[in-house]
């Protein structure tokens, strides 16, 4: 039994800071969205009443425009570290990622006995974690585009206007929420050794 270093301290700090920041952004964002919930098929009334969403637009805006800075700053620090530390080599998709993506899903579902070869992250992790980075960047940019459509009118124009940027911002939120649910399920499935590594940094290698 020996300890294998897995996640660096910097990664663990930004990861765990991101948890409350992202949760607060999604929660306060839904407080705002409630006021004009025009996209069909989302959030039935029981959802709003179960989570006490109703009539909290002002509060939602105040929290969103304050915590947004922390969320963006934490993401910016992560991106700096991502490139400087070389972490991107472990995470960004490579050519084999696309080849192994589907076999990885099949393996995880128990439909294929052999796991495809992988480094620190498997093919689906590379794809999904990279999507999270892209989604967060899009979320921050589309957020600024609807926050300041006059001062940052050029940014709003890049998204195809105010309404398109607002829709993009909503799509990012839905996608991130879905990924968070999958992520938590996968962490539960992977077990203690994997989870401990995200807090303590190391994994125990039994061989």
């Amino acid at each position, binding site marked *: 039994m020996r300890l294998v270093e897995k996640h660096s301290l910097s990664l663990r700090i930004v990861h765990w800071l991101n948890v409350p920041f992202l949760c607060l952004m999604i929660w306060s964002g839904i407080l705002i969205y409630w006021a004009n919930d*025009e996209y069909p098929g989302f959030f039935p009334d029981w959802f709003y009443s179960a989570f006490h969403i109703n009539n909290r637009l*002002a509060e939602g*805006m*105040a*929290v969103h*425009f304050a915590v947004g*800075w922390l969320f963006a700053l934490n993401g910016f620090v992560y991106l700096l570290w991502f490139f400087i530390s070389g972490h991107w080599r472990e995470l960004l998709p490579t050519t084999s990622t696309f080849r192994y993506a589907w076999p990885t899903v099949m393996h995880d579902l128990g439909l294929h006995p052999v796991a495809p070869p992988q480094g620190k992250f498997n093919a689906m992790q590379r794809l999904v974690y990279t999507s999270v980075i892209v989604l967060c960047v899009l979320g921050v940019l589309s957020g600024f585009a609807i926050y300041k459509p006059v001062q940052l*009118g050029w940014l709003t124009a890049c998204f195809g206007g105010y309404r398109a940027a607002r829709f993009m911002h909503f799509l990012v939120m839905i996608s991130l929420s879905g990924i968070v649910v999958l992520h938590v399920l996968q962490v539960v499935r992977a077990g203690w050794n994997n989870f401990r590594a995200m807090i303590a940094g190391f994994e125990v290698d039994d061989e």
Partner: protein
Amino acid sequence: MSEGRRRTLLSFSVFALGAGILFAAWCWWTAPGGGEEGDIPPRLRQVLEWNSRLWASPPSHRLSVLKPEPPAGKIPRTNGDLGLKNVVDVNLWRLEVYSDDSADARHLQLSLAELRALPRTTFSTEFRCVEGWSEDMSFAGIKFTDFMKAYGLQSKKYVALVSVDGEYYVSIDMESMEHEQTLLAYEMNGKPLLHQNGAPLRLVIPIKYGIKNLKQIGKIYFSDTRPPDYWAEQGYDWFAGL
């Protein structure tokens, strides 16, 4: 104790401590205050004020994006009837203007005909509500700077506008009032204002959210101290700039 157990215990303790500190920070940050400014916690409100200062610096030359004119007579979307208790008779209505908030302020009483005689400005742009919706609308009216020039009104730090029934009141920074798209508007979508849109005269300030675009103006005054603002008292950002 093995190396693994020692490190696990240490890391999880630090993690719990960090989570506790963050939670305490959140409680401190969102602790309720005197309740003077709606139900927004005062320390959160300070961030909104800081945001305002950050974004207030370069607004004068940035325009709210110009849009194609909507079909004439299209009924503009409305939201609420705050400040619209009275249906006013245009012939009796007068705009009350005070040059400042002191007792010996200059006082003007202006009819809609007098105001309509001032230089007319028109444009179409997107009108945005705090709720999230937006709509392209066209406006016609008097640029606020033209209005000030016409009556020799001097700049103060703030301009306050109050509805005829007195129930809706906003205060706005002078820089935003001097923006070239800030109008005292008497037409929307090519037609004289409808009652529900604030007839006979409303504020149009597309560089701010709809909550600042006061309907059915009864009184305007200039002030160096920030006058009260209805929606800020309800917990919304006072600056509300876009």
